[in-house]
């Protein structure tokens, strides 16, 4: 069977189109399940919590709220954005610049009791670098405090 060049070109174009649509479809369906939304404590205060989903919680580590558990590797602290507070529990090595009064983004899930179970913490790294999710929010928070 001889394939006509024109038809083959068409078939290739269709295959490329299918690949693009496939990529788009694949990406969008995965995005629906996997995109992690960002919340500040004030965003969830008095509203239904997004339970069972991986989300990010960002704000300041409240001064005086950091406590260490007896096992030496678990901590509890409170994240605040000046409007509301959320208690956070985390087990693991904290990032290098994690401290009270400093900015933090916690990745994890909200619990039914209103607390937050963090799988991972991101902290402000140095003067110049700041995780993008926190930069905008922190700016708001700092302005509020002043």
């Amino acid at each position, binding site marked *: 069977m001889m*394939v*006509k*060049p*024109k038809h*083959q*070109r068409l078939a*290739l174009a269709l*295959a*490329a189109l*299918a*690949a*693009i649509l*496939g*990529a*788009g479809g*694949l*990406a*969008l369906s*995965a*995005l629906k*399940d*996997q*995109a*992690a*939304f*960002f919340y500040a404590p004030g965003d969830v205060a008095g509203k239904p919590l997004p339970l069972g989903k*991986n989300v*990010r919680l960002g704000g300041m580590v409240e001064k005086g709220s950091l406590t*260490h558990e007896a*096992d*030496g*590797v678990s901590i509890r602290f409170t994240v605040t954005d000046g409007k509301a507070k959320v208690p956070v529990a985390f*087990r*693991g*090595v*904290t990032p*290098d*610049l994690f401290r009270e009064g400093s900015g933090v983004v916690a*990745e994890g899930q909200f619990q039914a009791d209103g607390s937050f179970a963090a799988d991972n913490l991101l902290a402000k*790294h*140095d*003067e*110049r*670098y*700041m*995780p*993008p*999710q926190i*930069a*905008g*929010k922190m*700016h708001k928070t700092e302005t509020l405090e002043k």
Partner: protein
Amino acid sequence: MIAEGGLAALWIAAAMALVQLVLGGSAARSGAEELMRATRKIAVVQGLLALGAFLTLILLFVQSDMSVLLVATNSHSAKPLIYKIAGAWGNHEGSMLLWVTVLGVAGAGVAIFEKRLDGKTLAATLAAQAVLALGFYAFLLLASNPFLRLDPPAPDGQGLNPLLQDPGLAFHPPTLYLGYVGLSVAFSFAVGALLTRQIGPAFARAMRPWVLGAWFFLTIGITAGSYWAYYELGWGGWWFWDPVENASLMPWLAATALLHSVTVLATRDGLRAWTLMLAVVAFSMSMIGTFLVRSGILVSVHAFAVDPTRGTFILALLAIYIGGALALFGARVGTVTQGSTFQLVSREGALVLNNLLLCVILGVVFIGTLYPLVAQAMGQQLSVGAPFFNAASVPVALALVVATMAGPMLKWRKDQWGALGRKMMLPAAAMVTIVVVLLVAMPGTPIVPLLGLVAAAGLAVASIVPLLGRKLRRTPIHIYGMVLAHLGVAVAIAGMASDTAFKQERLAAVRVGETVAVGSFKAKLTEIRPIIGENWSALEATLSIRRNDGDPFRLQPQQRYFSQPVTTTSEAAISTMIDGQLYTVLGASDGQGRYQIRMWWKPFVTFIWLGGFMIAFGGLLAMVGRIRREMRSEDEAE
């Protein structure tokens, strides 16, 4: 005066690029021999001037000239020499200068070495390269001048982010940039060929070594970057799917597709328009990736707002180059005469499949990387992380592995399903064996890494099959390159799957004298002591470790404190064994004599980077083999 000299060199280089554009453009029209020679010479001068400006900046950093703003904000006189040098490109302006330097030098390389391409297309290519260079010179000179003076001079500099003070990272950006900007040559070739309509096997053979060279550097850069993140960040992960990593992965995916499709064009004169398209897309991805990261849009929406001129400038450049190239493509694609057709079951067919799957992965990564930006514009803050990228790309990547097994076994033009089936027997046997072994020995293996290990075993065997029945000494070098690269893919996948499925982790707070166990290892914390480095101080833990009843060995992870700027970093201590790595991190103290110790046993994790380097050197072998062949056939022609 030195800084002004560098600035002057940049301005003259920009002027040379303008001359190169005019000369190259008219040479492409008229085909006049003298104009072409002049264009080549100007391209070399332009490249040398850019290189001179870059070396000037390095000199300023080495001298710690605090009257230069960039040095004062990014360097410090107490820094070790190697990081003073690396500091020259560890910032926005310096890295942009490095970018145009590579662009200019690559253009000069084309002007000096490219002898196979017909004169008109070469002139058009150099003109296109000049257009690219002009835009980036303008960006550098008008919005990111690296030679800006500081008056009065600073007493001392502000230092370099300690995370970046690492020998591996010092040479990571230049390697990546060689890859990114090396793809500009493919882009300019495509534009040149579209202008002169000279698209065929000769064009593909001329473009191929450049694509392979850029791809080699890109692969090395990504692999080295992954290892850097692995040991420097202290999280034990080797790929985080963060925007900066995706920015390097996207051009790599496009370039991988390109170097396969260019082979179809060179061998069978097929996929003409598609190859040109990929050449445009590959460098577009380089530009999008670098500039989204460099402009700060992706890393921080905040930074973008701080300096709107820069962001707007970058977006305008992107729009002009990508839009212009695509418009040219759209206008000319109808006149690109049809190449040869082919059968579904053939080498070409498999390579088309390879290209489609690579493009699907590219699309997924592209959408995932840019989606947060789009969502942000619509007033929603979200992040797209590893769960998305893994879910969307791993299944496609596994399908790609299957295509990679079959492709090299198929004949060009036309092959039979039956013949393919017979050749697939050996890899299939390997896959079945692995399934059985894993199900018996490691019954709890999760499904995705299990499939990864199976695919890796199949590909490892399949990649050797093309060598069977060949006289090894008479096999062309580029075949060895392909075999090595495909074998590297198998090795890397095996490493990723093994680490994902079998790694063991332990986190504990221990006192001096206490023991932590992970896997078959027992680590005793014998000492915690402070130490002083060149520009840091640290707390160092000494762990005395035994594997089962073997001889004890020591690992010494640290917490380092830097004063300029004030930062703490974890320095992981890693022991590499034949079957994996033991990774230890010292965490915070609880103030009561206990220190957090985190340990991972990561079986065969080193395969990831071993595979990466095999892939890269496979590309290098293929490039060397192709160039040798071209030179030999040139000699015969004479």
